[in-house]
């Protein structure tokens, strides 16, 4: 479950801008989180994370025509990943080739106002390295043949999407008024803990205008997390504790069901 609800912060600041006729101020975008920390408990089965945001100084005409587009991305921390391929050897399916990628975002969740191809051009996506096909996946060994690298890069994206870690939500950003919008991002059940970066991109008539970002820490909470931390930080003590528990269970079992 999401313990914390996300609430807009930037709403109030944007309202008085159009009171007097002045030279048009540059448009901007703001997003706000009510908390910089989301705690998920052990039985977390995925959730929608809502981020509110606002446009600064929007042109009312463009706004009325619905020509503003917003893309919000929640990107997880980057970690190295090994992609392995199974091949048939002597009839058995065995891991054979592998490719290591150095900086792979653990998760990547994107929400858009409209289908991505309607927002802006593929070139512009590439320049912003925005969208699942444009996440830069850097192979550790760049001397491998481009075909191999391409094959494993595609497999990595496809597996990440299959695991629900890379996802996009078309229509996930909705304008609530001229200025205010709400973005709904999917958090997979296996969402990784760590510092996630929320970024929002503003487009007008397919032109990229501005980007803003904020950070969000996703932490696991509760009893299970305490165990996990104990096991990773103090492996030896954890091992001793496990042994003690096992012996205690065995001994108790003998006392409860004593036969001799």
């Amino acid at each position: 479950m999401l313990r914390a609800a996300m609430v807009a912060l930037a709403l109030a600041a944007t309202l008085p801008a159009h009171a007097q006729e002045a030279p048009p101020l540059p448009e901007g975008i703001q997003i706000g989180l009510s908390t910089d920390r989301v705690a998920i408990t052990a039985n977390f089965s995925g959730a929608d994370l809502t981020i509110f945001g606002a446009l600064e100084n929007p042109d009312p005409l463009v706004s009325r025509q619905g020509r503003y587009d917003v893309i919000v991305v929640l990107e997880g921390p980057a970690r190295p990943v090994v992609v392995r391929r199974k091949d048939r050897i002597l009839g058995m399916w065995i891991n054979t080739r592998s490719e290591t990628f150095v900086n792979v975002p653990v998760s990547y969740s994107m929400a858009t106002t409209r289908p991505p191809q309607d927002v802006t051009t593929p070139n512009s996506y590439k320049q912003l390295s925005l969208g699942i096909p444009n996440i830069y996946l850097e192979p550790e060994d760049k001397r491998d043949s481009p075909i191999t690298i391409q094959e494993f890069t595609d497999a990595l994206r496809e597996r990440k999407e299959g695991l629900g870690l890379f996802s996009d939500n078309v229509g996930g950003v909705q304008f609530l008024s001229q200025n205010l919008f709400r973005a709904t991002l999917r958090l997979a059940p296996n969402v990784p803990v760590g510092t996630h970066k929320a970024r929002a991109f503003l487009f007008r008539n397919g032109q990229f205008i501005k980007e803003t970002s904020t950070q969000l820490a996703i932490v696991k909470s509760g009893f299970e997390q305490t165990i996990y931390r104990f096991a990773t930080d103090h492996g030896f003590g954890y091992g001793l504790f496990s042994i003690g528990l096992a012996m205690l269970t065995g001994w108790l079992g003998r006392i409860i069901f004593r036969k001799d």
Partner: protein
Amino acid sequence: MGVYLPIAEMSVNMFVLLAMGAAVGFLSGMFGVGGGFLITPLLIFYNIPPAIAVATGANQVIASSFSGALAHLKRGTLDFKLGTVLLIGGIAGSAVGAYIFALLRSIGQLDLFISLLYVVFLGTVGGLMLVESVNALRMTKGGVPPALKKSGQHNWIHRLPFKMRFRTSKLFVSVIPVLGIGAGIGLLSAIMGVGGGFIMVPALIYLLKVPTNVVVGTSLFQIVVVSAFTTLVHSSTNQTVDIVLALVLMVGGVAGAQYGAKAGQKLRGEQLRALLALLVLAVALRLGFDLFVKPQNLYSLTSLSGRTM
């Protein structure tokens, strides 16, 4: 009821795990085996990552073996000296095994290796037991009393140097095979998550000619300590021991073992062995079968140390 496994990082049904633990406990009580060789494959069938299944299996083995070892200690059917020599070998074997385990995991071959080892060992042990017990069943049906293997006969093992006297076992034997058996079991314990009783007991009886009444207690003693060592090594180097998973399995196992022991007294020895052999063969076949089935995803993602994602 769902329970979250903090190390495996997945939610599982607690009743399935309890039932699994109870079923294996029942069998281990019935046949007098530790049950690690059944728990680990069952966990793998239940989609627990093999690395975690193995390390947790080793942890779970401690509970059932400790309980049994206490009983033998009380009856005086435990040869501490023999057990200690076995242990020295066992701990060395386990340390090497854990190193191999981490190495295989980092090159992505651990799952394959675990399955292959299980198929080979369970297939061999199950096959031999089945043949032996079916023969015994046939003989008793024909009215011929089953011929017992004569112990006390000397073989090449008894000509090795560095002899040592083990009073409780009434044995005067070289320490080389004792250390060797211990090391082999330790290696298997670390890589397969088994106590190794199903190999240790026949090895002590047939190779070293240890009297049958001391074999089980001594083997249990060595299993407790080696499994404890294995748990410690895995938890500090690979962080793959899931204590929640182990605890649920242990609780089920301890309860199941009591009923299994009672059921075991009603069945005849040969029938018991034939049943266990069939069970062992079934697990081996299933694990072997999975190796040949085309996996759903040909590509898999892991971290650098081999942790599945």
